[in-house]
């Protein structure tokens, strides 16, 4: 629908993708962060087992979300934003999108490199992306760990920006992503 004017709210599908993935990222951070302090044992394996299954779920959702996004325009940014704010919002959103792919992919690759294949909730096993290799694993683990902090930072910035829009600018940027709310009509 290229000639239609952009919507004023995010659609239910976009909201669904956003909030499900957001919730899964919180779960992922908790599982991944706490698992690293456990010794190699049944408890660590169980935690990472969930971490991998959720990670592959996020990757799948990210693929679907990106495809959906390509064919569905999001609402435009509110008119009051400065050029810098618009640029910052665009870069931050792009970074989040990139990390939605890079985090699961580096996780998947590091599992392959350590010869711990990735299962999806014990239903099926994803193919290994790389062969067993300790150096490759160490490199990927460092990347995965470092990028998790980048994701943490951009997600935090994203949340703070949403609150700034809602409480400071008093626009509908937060509301239009919230289900069961109504956005005020923009003049």
């Amino acid at each position, binding site marked *: 629908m290229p000639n239609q004017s952009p919507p004023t709210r995010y659609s239910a599908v976009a909201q669904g993708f956003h909030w499900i993935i957001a919730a899964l990222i919180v779960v992922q951070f908790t599982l991944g962060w706490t698992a690293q302090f456990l010794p*190699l*044992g*049944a*408890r660590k*394996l*169980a935690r*990472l*087992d969930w971490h*991998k*299954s959720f990670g592959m779920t996020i990757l799948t959702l990210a693929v679907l979300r990106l495809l959906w996004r390509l064919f569905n325009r999001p609402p435009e940014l509110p008119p009051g934003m400065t050029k810098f704010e618009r640029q910052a919002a665009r870069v931050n959103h792009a970074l989040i999108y990139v990390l939605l792919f890079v985090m699961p992919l580096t996780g998947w690759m590091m599992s392959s490199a*350590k*010869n*711990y*294949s*990735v*299962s*999806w*909730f*014990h*239903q099926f*096993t994803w193919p290994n992306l790389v062969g*067993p290799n*300790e150096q490759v694993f160490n490199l990927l683990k460092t990347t995965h760990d470092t990028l998790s902090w980048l994701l943490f930072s951009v997600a935090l910035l994203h949340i703070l920006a949403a609150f700034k829009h809602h409480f400071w600018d008093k626009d509908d940027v937060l509301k239009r992503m919230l289900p069961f709310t109504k956005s005020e009509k923009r003049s």
Partner: protein
Amino acid sequence: MRKLLAGTAAVLLNSAAVLLCSAAALTSSAAAAAASYTADPAQSRLEFVGVQAGAEFKGVFHKFTANVDFAPDALAGSRIDVQIDMNSVDSMDKDRDTTIRSKDIFDVAHNPTAHYVTKTITKTAAGYSAVGALTLRGVTKDVPIDFQFVPAGAGAKLTGSAKLNRLDFGVGQGDWKSTENVGDAVKINFSLVLKPKT
């Protein structure tokens, strides 16, 4: 009458001797028919496939010796005898290998070797199957195997597989007893390149 008795006795003794001789000939010919081989360590492979966190993982034993007496027409005198150095386990991850060698899993400090020796070998449609005694982590239990024996020059290639339950042998104590993270069933695949014994 005495002559007759003596004659009969002599005949009986003779036949007994003939019987004994032929029995001896039979057993010796069977033993001779089963040729003796050893596995070439460089070309042979002993692999296990376990399930961890819902996904299969493979490992190998780098050090093992296999002595095989085998002939398709002398299965009663055939035998496969494998000795495995449990320290040589390699699952392509050092952390996991250390864990596998530890007390709760292989306990290599107390059980450095595993031993498998066949008791009976029978012909099947696809090749052969055998039942043998596996001693693993100090526990001995029967484990059946299926295999193919393909002569190659003076030697042969012996390939096959087996399935066992690790918990039957106490492989996995404490937390590792749970089959939620590490499955009970383990597959074994082997491929032995046999050289004739000199």
